[in-house]
């Protein structure tokens, strides 16, 4: 029954997205063309990538507030490498970005695992440290478009079958992590560690280590997104993607990921990110003021949480009734 509920939640979200598109279509048909939708998807790709990582972290009852700072730091490092050594192959740049992001994620994971510091405190701290580090390495200066090599800037924009590489990266991430979450022992351990940490411990799962891997995955995705972000916008500075971590958490919540851990799917995170992405891209087109955009995004979050709470309440009622009869 619960599974049907989750499935219907994802169906519900798909329905909401369709409704949104229909509403936009009635005002501005040009928005709902394949080319423009591919555009919107591409634009939302960074949010999708980070939301997948965040979802995995939230599943283990943690949160990663440092994702946007990780993205910005990695982005700055690869831009500066590109400025210093323009000839470096893009493949190597990607490896460096993913590697650095992974490392930063591991720092979070180690602090949570080995020192048992609450994740919100750890990532609030590392978020500030990462931003500070960007300032230290860049002296607060920007890396601008003309300083970046053409190959560096071209990679995320290269179109394959009408969708740029940036968009394809999100598609591949969705597929890869769907498999990881449903078909590997790590994925299973992640759900178990968040669903009931004590039961997971007794079943031989190291909960702290599982959380470490979740942060590592989140960091790797943030690092990858860091390169894609600075190369796509062709600029890098201290404050890029400032506050973006909150959009990422919002995408997860809208996508039905339970903030209490143990519940959520990659598809849910994808849909949550798309919902926010469509709102962000469509509202200016249909001439809605930016203030309304914020209000609508906020409203969507609250509705999603209310639906989540309702889903949890159904579960709670069963437990209560049982406790009622139990003694």
């Amino acid at each position, binding site marked *: 029954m619960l599974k049907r509920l989750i499935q219907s939640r994802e169906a519900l979200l798909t329905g909401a997205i369709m409704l949104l598109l229909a509403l936009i279509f009635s005002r501005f048909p040009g928005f709902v063309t394949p080319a423009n939708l591919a555009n919107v998807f591409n634009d939302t790709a960074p949010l999708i990538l980070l939301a997948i990582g965040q979802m995995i972290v939230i599943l283990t009852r943690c949160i990663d507030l440092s994702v946007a700072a990780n993205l910005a730091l990695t982005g700055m490092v690869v831009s500066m490498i590109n400025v210093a050594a323009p000839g470096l192959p893009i493949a190597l740049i990607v490896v460096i970005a993913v590697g650095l992001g992974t490392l930063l994620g591991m720092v979070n994971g180690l602090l949570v695992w080995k020192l048992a510091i609450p994740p919100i405190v750890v990532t609030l701290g590392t978020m500030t440290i990462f931003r500070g580090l960007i300032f230290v390495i860049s002296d607060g200066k920007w890396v601008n478009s003309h300083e970046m090599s053409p190959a560096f800037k071209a990679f995320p924009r290269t179109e394959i079958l009408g969708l740029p590489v940036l968009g394809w990266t999100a598609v591949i991430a969705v597929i890869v992590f769907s498999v990881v979450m449903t078909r590997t*022992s790590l994925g299973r351990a992640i759900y178990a560690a968040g669903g009931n940490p004590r039961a997971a411990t*007794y*079943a031989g799962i190291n909960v702290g280590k599982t959380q470490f891997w979740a942060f590592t995955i989140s960091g790797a995705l943030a690092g990858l997104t860091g390169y894609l972000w600075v190369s796509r916008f062709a600029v890098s500075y201290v404050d890029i993607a400032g506050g973006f971590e909150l959009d990422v958490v919002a995408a997860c919540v809208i996508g039905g990921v339970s903030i209490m851990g143990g519940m959520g799917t990659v598809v849910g995170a994808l849909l949550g990110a798309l919902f926010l992405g469509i709102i962000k891209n469509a509202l200016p087109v249909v001439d809605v003021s930016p203030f309304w955009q914020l209000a609508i995004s906020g409203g969507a979050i609250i509705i999603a949480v209310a639906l989540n709470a309702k889903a949890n309440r159904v579960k709670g009622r069963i437990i209560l009734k049982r406790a009622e009869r*139990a003694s």
Partner: protein
Amino acid sequence: MLKKPDTFLPTDDGTGETAVLALDGITKRFPGVIALSGVSLRLIPGKVTALIGENGAGKSTVVKILTGIYQPDGGAMLVDELPTVFPAPQVAAEHGVTAIHQETVLFDELSVAENIFLGHAPRGRFGLIDLKAMIARSRDILESIGAGIDPEQKLKDLGIAKKHLVAIARALSIDARVVIMDEPTAALSHKEIEELYELVESLKSQGKAILFISHKFDEIFRIADNYTVFRDGQMIGKGAMADVSEVDLVTMMVGRDVSQIFPQRASNPGETVLKVEGYAHPTEFEDISFTLRKGQILGFYGLVGAGRSEFMQALFGITRPSRGRIEIDGITAQITSPADAIENGIVYVPEDRGQQGAILDLPIFQNVTLPSLGRISGNGFLKLAQEFALAREYTERLDLRAASLDTHVGTLSGGNQQKVVIAKWLATRPKVIILDEPTKGVDIGSKAAVHEFMAELAAQGLAVIMVSSEIPEILGMSDRVIVMREGRIVTELAQGDMRPETLVRHAAGI
């Protein structure tokens, strides 16, 4: 049963005593369930009334009605023989009804005095809390029950028994006339239980009416004056304790004769499977050595805090011992994590199965295979066909009934959830199974099923370690028993040498 009287004037039950609080024909319905149907209960000043019933009999619903948390759908509540309603918990408190719960509902970060007077603190000028008066009155109340607790201490610094005393002091602070004790001894040691009995006696002499809810018959016979038995939401019988026997009460509770509570089993232990030598922990236990054979049930008895569970957790790799070695099937084993223990054939079914058992958000098959993931995966990828086969094998063996193995465990009944948890451990193909307080808080009917199952496991050649604080269970189930006190093994007894007095003497160190 009695016909409901037309007037609410004295509901005479033949004893001629006036009840300070009484329920008359109370009914309570929940969607799909009738929790109580027409039950009656009388609480007499200066008397202890035992409320007895299996899990699900409606005991806690009655407590919630008496304390104003639930409103009855029918029937009458009488205070001093006058019809009254308790629309809210505060009203129940104003009438002097107070409850002390299984897990005391108190606030760790507040002081003892603040806990005692929370919600009705004495007020001084400007309506601010008069701290001095609050502490002074707390001290008086705590002294009157001989608690020896400093009212300015933080609650979290107290042990569980002292917390109970604070809860009782809180009850006294509102000038309670009715004190409800819901399984008050569940977490207490032998000595602490004795102190609680004395306290109950002193409350009686102060003229309080006490409702005492317990699963333990020795307790009920020790301190109760009257009894009321519930079964499936109905009142089955009531009367004076002097007029009933244990067998009568059990028969009323379960509605059938329970003559043989423990399964008969032939003990024919096989070769040694587990050998523990000199296990020690810096603070919890010392010098634990024993051997265990196939097909044997080894009981671990001791008072709460004797270090039994702590030792089991070390054996299972949750904590690390500072010294000692273990052999499994004659080969030295290194166990530094639960995963190691499971791989070596040791599994641990912890005390609190609700918290530590199943993962409700995951489907049945994923719960069953969780400790066995290593066996059904290659290079980190799960082999789904193997996974389903494993889950099917063990759920079928336990006769688990569910629409499909995809069903989420959260939607199953309690009994089926229990089966999922057991299937999970059996699927690891263990050699040694550790059961920590396997029947704690479980009603008599389900207890027999658990014992039956343990006997079956042993008969199949599994070595069973049973940690239990219940003497009848130790006597009825173990082939051998190890008694622990203050982290050490004090004695090991074979089945023929086990006597309740011997066990208690060794455990208490007298």
